[in-house]
């Protein structure tokens, strides 16, 4: 889906999320956009989010393993 096709968030919301979590703001913003988008069911939105989070956990574990 093109970026222009997605629902945009009000800029105050985006700024607040970026302020609170610069590292994961994209993930969260995409998730809220999916929730708002009536083309995307909540379960699909949740699936997408969980696969993003799993990737983050894997990267963390990889990072810990390489430190060890």
């Amino acid at each position, binding site marked *: 889906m093109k970026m222009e*096709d997605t*629902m945009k968030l009000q800029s105050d919301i985006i700024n607040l*999320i970026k302020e609170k979590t610069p590292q994961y703001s994209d993930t969260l913003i995409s*998730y809220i956009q999916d*929730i708002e988008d009536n*083309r995307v069911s909540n379960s699909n939105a949740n699936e997408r989010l*969980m696969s993003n*989070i799993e990737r983050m956990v894997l990267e963390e574990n990889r990072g810990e393993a390489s430190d060890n």
Partner: protein
Amino acid sequence: MIIKLIKFSDFRQFYGEHEIDFGIGNKNTTLIIGANGNGKTGIFRALMFVLYGDTLLDQDNDAADINIINLDKLDENKNSPVKSKVELIFEYNNENYLIKREIVGIKSGNKTKTKKTEPELYIIETQGELSPYTKEPVQLFINRILDPKIREFFFFDAERMQLLDTTKSKKSLSEEIQEGITRLLQIKYLQEAINELDKLKRNKQREINKQVNSKDIDDKSREKEELQDKVKEYEGALEILRREKRDIDTEISAIQIELSKNNEIKELQDKITDKRIILNKNKENRGLHKEKISEKLKEGIQLLGKDILLKNEQNFRDYLDKSSDNIPLALLEQSVDQDSCALCKADVKKGSVQYFSIKKLIDNYKSSELTPIINDILTTSSNLGPRVIPYKRDVEKLLKELAANQNDIYETQLAIETLEEQIKEYASNVDNLTILEKQLKDFEKDSKDYSEKISINESQIQLRNDKIESIDKEIEELTSKFVKVKKDNALKQYLDDFKTILEDTMKEYSYTITLELSDEIYDTFMNLLDKKDSINYKEVTINDKFEIKLMNRIDQNVIQDLSMGQSQIFTLAFILSLAKLASKGRNEINFPLFMDTPFARLSRENRNNLIKNIPSLTNQWILLLSDTEFTSNEKELFEKYNQVGKLYLLNNYEGRTTIEAYNKLSELDLEGY
């Protein structure tokens, strides 16, 4: 969203094909003028039909009376299908689209059967070719652009649209407003995301618990679930309590406003009460005065005889001289007893000559019965003399005081009568006032009771939530010891962190955006309102339940006291402000403001303010005006502000409407229209 062109054929009064171009850019105002019945609302219907498939509007009472397909066309083609079609070209997200929708009807005898077709949507490519839009169902796309639940805010039927329509229940009003605010400002979607994250988190925890298979964890999970159920119960009860308290508080505000209008009556009543206290006091004093005068008069009876006494004083003295009992017997006896003369103190020893002389007087003493009386009279007469003047003075003083008191009583009674006459003018309100005051007391007591119950509920919820939190920590601690669930724990932690971030975001955002919205609504309302009215209002407030209040200078919510016209302007201010804030960073939110007969209820100054300000507050302004709403005043103003991009006049001849386009306002002459 920018609407560019609408075409319709055989739609309502519009026989044959017609089209309307809409003003855009810095000439974003479109005027469509027509007398009642000429088809203005028909254009509004065409827009609702093509976008949402609506064949009815809110104002329609009886579905059977609304014919979408032109009746003449149906009559001309009896028993054959007749198609009524509407097409709309619009721009959204820098892309141009064409949407079309049709309705087909067959008239047989007196009955007409109709069927709507599915809408078709095309992307208009750069060269003008049409590519069908296939990414998703058309209606889904349109609803995504402008959610049907909030479209009424932008397609403004002024005859019907009142944010504060008192014919609607309070519940449905606040739900509509809440819907508008939470959708457009995206608070709804933040909350939905939070709820989903919560569900994901719980599911993940359940998965972890299953894998771990620990009795301790199971017990704690069960305990937690029981607590959560209890919390839900309390939250349900709390919601009801809060709603009921809100209703009561609304009643209280309404009564307070009513009572304040009746302050004059209350003041009059208080004055009457004060006057009655004074009157009673004066009457008491009058009683005292009367007693004093009565006593004084008794004293004065003696003075009545004074002149007579004076006249006869000499006669009395002569009588005493002649009588032999000038010396009272008591003195003679005293002289003998005390061995000395009671008068001159000479010795009167027993056996002396003087002794025997006095004894002889005693033995021969014959008193005259008159002597003591005459003596009394003479004494009284001599005492009366000096008393006359002071007595007269006293009596005069008492009489003056009595007169003054009587005058006070009279004046107070007159004042009371005057006040009672004034109150009679408000006769019917006096009883209401008493009833309202009683109701207010009862409601205030109820409100206080509700506050207490709400507080108890809240603390019960907090208690259980604290316990739930502590159980969660215990469960986490127990599960973290199990290596096999380490990854799931990590996932759950992310979900938890994201949920917290979004909760904080929503809290801050809701708080600041509703403050901004309140200020924006107030500023816009002040700009659009008559100057003489605008000084009455201090601010707009929106609480966390999205209830809107308009506060006057003495901190009363006067939103229910707005006139129809003011209410309409307030609604406009709300819509424009909401759209402005919602569109921060999102151009696609800027919807056209489509207004059907907007000026009917507005004063001249209101209309002027709208014409001056609205083009700059919205993307596009499309007005359907009746001929009576478009006077020379409006024409001059539209010319002055030079925002009108397109101008049309609807003419109706024998039931068929035609659309006449004008290039300039100056060309339009409604004389004899």
